[in-house]
């Protein structure tokens, strides 16, 4: 394995930089996935059948809290990567931990939000609109859930193995994923919630 020490740890081997490029391409596919969901959402948004419209069920408070939690977590994962770059294992772990905590908080509120929707009669089966709403939010939520466990595993690996070429690479890729979910959320927030409440 060729090691190039002039590059940051996460890029230092050929395998590492392949993985990062591969992950960027994967994010390209993810963009298409969410773009398809958004396109379907805009197609179905007014097709509410006998069910409620967005304006009738959206509640700003949980959504705002979710937004703040997720945006902050995107910031803390950035700090985590910075700590990793300067080789501070403790700080990296701490920031990863905070990020995951915020992620879990986000999920908690999202579950609360979903329960609310079901209570006001907006279930998966109610109408095309509720179906695509819950599917789009749910797909994002599943990504966050998946990311939570992924991040947790990486945290455990940093703890056990330290900041090696592999763990640095994994952390960096994880941070890309986490930022991406944040970007998707910004779109959800603007085009689903804000637009829906107006």
């Amino acid at each position, binding site marked *: 394995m060729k090691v190039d020490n002039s590059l940051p740890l996460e890029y230092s081997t050929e395998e590492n930089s392949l993985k990062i490029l591969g992950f960027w391409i994967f994010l390209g596919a*993810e963009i298409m996935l969410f773009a398809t969901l958004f396109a*379907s959402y805009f197609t179905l948004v007014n097709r509410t059948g006998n069910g409620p419209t967005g304006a009738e069920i959206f509640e700003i408070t949980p959504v705002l809290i979710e937004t703040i939690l997720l945006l902050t977590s995107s910031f803390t994962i950035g700090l985590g990567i910075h700590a990793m770059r300067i080789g501070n294992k403790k700080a990296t772990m701490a920031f990863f931990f905070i990020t995951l905590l915020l992620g879990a908080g986000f999920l908690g509120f999202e579950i609360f939000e979903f329960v609310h929707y079901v209570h006001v009669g907006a279930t998966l089966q109610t109408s095309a609109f509720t179906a695509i709403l819950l599917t789009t939010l749910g797909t994002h939520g599943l990504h966050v859930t998946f990311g939570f466990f992924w991040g947790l595993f990486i945290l455990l690996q940093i703890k056990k193995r330290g900041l090696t070429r592999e763990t640095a690479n994994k952390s960096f890729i994880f941070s890309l994923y986490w930022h991406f979910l944040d970007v998707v959320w910004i779109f959800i927030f603007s085009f689903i919630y804000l637009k829906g409440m107006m």
Partner: protein
Amino acid sequence: MDFFERFAVPHPSFLIYASMVGIGLTMIAIVIGITYFKKWGYLWSEWLTTVDHKRIGIMYLLSALLMLFRGGVDAIMMRSQLALPDNTLLDSQHYNEIFTTHGVVMILFMAMPFIMFFFNFIVPLQIGARDVAFPRLNAISFWLFFMGMGLFNLSFIIGGSPDAGWTSYFPLAGNEFSSSVGTNYYMIAIQIAGIGTLLTGINFMTTILKMRAPGMTLMKMPMFTWSAFIANVIIVFAFPVLTVALAMGTMDRLFGTNFFTTVNGGMDMLWANLFWVWGHPEVYILILPAFGLYSEIISTFAKRNLYGYKSMVASMVLISLLSFFVWAHHFFTMGQGALTNSIFSITTMAIAVPTGVKIFNWLFTLWKGKIEFTTPMLYSMLFIPLFTLGGVTGVMLAMSAADYQYHNTMFLVAHFHNVIIPGVVYAMLAGLTYYWPKLFGFMLNEKLGKWTAWVLSIGFVLAFIPMYITGLDGQARRMYTYSESTGFGLLNMVSFVGAAIMAVGFVLLVYNIYYSTRYASRDISNDPWDARSLEWATHTPVPEYNFAITPQVNTTQPFWDSKKNGHQLFKGKIEKIHMPNNSGLPFIMGCFFFVFGFAMVFSMWPLVIIGLIGILACLAYRSFEKDHGRYISVEEIEETETKLRGAKQ
């Protein structure tokens, strides 16, 4: 017994029961055979756990050939049913099931793995790489494809086939009109295979971008690698659309959502749109690698550099872009306005331009070439006129006003077979013949090969050209019979004869493989066709590390230059080579996907959860696993090299 009732076939027939017995016996025979010859260990350690791109390629090839057989049997059954008016060989339900599985199997489980075989086997060799970027992921791709294929093919003996067409339009494909589990199989099996394909796309894009031999700039890549690259870009951007569409379809069927229904705001046309946003690019995912193969073959056997390299690349890029903006041409008649139809008419016709550029480039490559009529070249020469005909009828279909006459008639069926068979299938057969010596160390018989090409072509013309006529006269597609008074009888009989002749062609292919395996000379060189690109610069059989020394590239045809112009391909001395370890994980994960998929089809939730946990456990295991691969020592490489050199020349 309630539990088992769900597995019964809702609309059985003698043929289905016979197939059940046949499949059961074959399975038992395979298991007994492997046990008797004590091959389980070999199967596990050399194939099921392999991460070698060449072996994965061969497994794709075997799957594709198997599916060609399955889809071919479907085709023959359809043509037999239509051979006579008011025929009762098949009833309408069986006919529906058969045209559905024929389409899915041929496109997704025959043509796709066939091009995957070429990607896997050829691309790393052509760019002088040791393997793909992510060998382990590559194995996962294969096993997901394989399990999806297995699941789909189970449908007709357990629970019933899908029967809503390979396009599976809603509301027909919804629970109300398709109450058997057939369409569940469609949604879930294609989903699993599709995820595998998406991962392949990511893998090969990374491989081609990052792992080319020194000196091989993008504009010095062999044309097949270019076509593979573009096809994989399309895969990465088109398959997620299918993922979403299938997920929504699955939810409609299993969880009672209303995406594509006709009540509570559901919108059936959304499915048609999503399906073809994926579906049309998919067609180009198949044809571009075929174009790549023809480019390699034509320049090899015209003994000339490919004419118009840059315009070849540019036209492929343009085709790939345009392919995302034409999808509505599949449903001009389904209610969008004149403006929309006109726009999609124009974008569709525009695709003919870059395609035409490619045809002319091939013709100019032939011009003044020293043409050698080998079997692969014969296929290519048959391809050019036949494919052009298919392209021309495509432009006819692209005129939205006229399409009201052609749509959903046999004219359409004639068109897409006219492009898929001479375009994709011939390229697969030409490429297979061309690369056979690299794969297995002997050549396929040329005489039998040429016979096959001619028989297939005669069969093709007889089978499909008449459909243009009956289509224009109004014979609808997907109809299981027609009355005598329509007058379609004679031409349909001709089609049947053509289909039978094509079947003979495929039998000839199989016979050729058998014959050549027994009798062909094993004493051939590493470069039996006097070819131009790097895959021919290594030994046959290709050692697991591909190239002992990474080749140096100067032009688009480095190997030719090394033979004729004194270019030195291999500089420096042998060093130890890093290789990935085999792993059972991809296969095991594939099995969990199968369990998950099967359980989803029948809504067996506890089993669904078990499958899911299995998949997630595999991912978690992978995350914690430490696997740094292994090294092949210099002595080992030198030993292999002398042995391989000794066998030839």
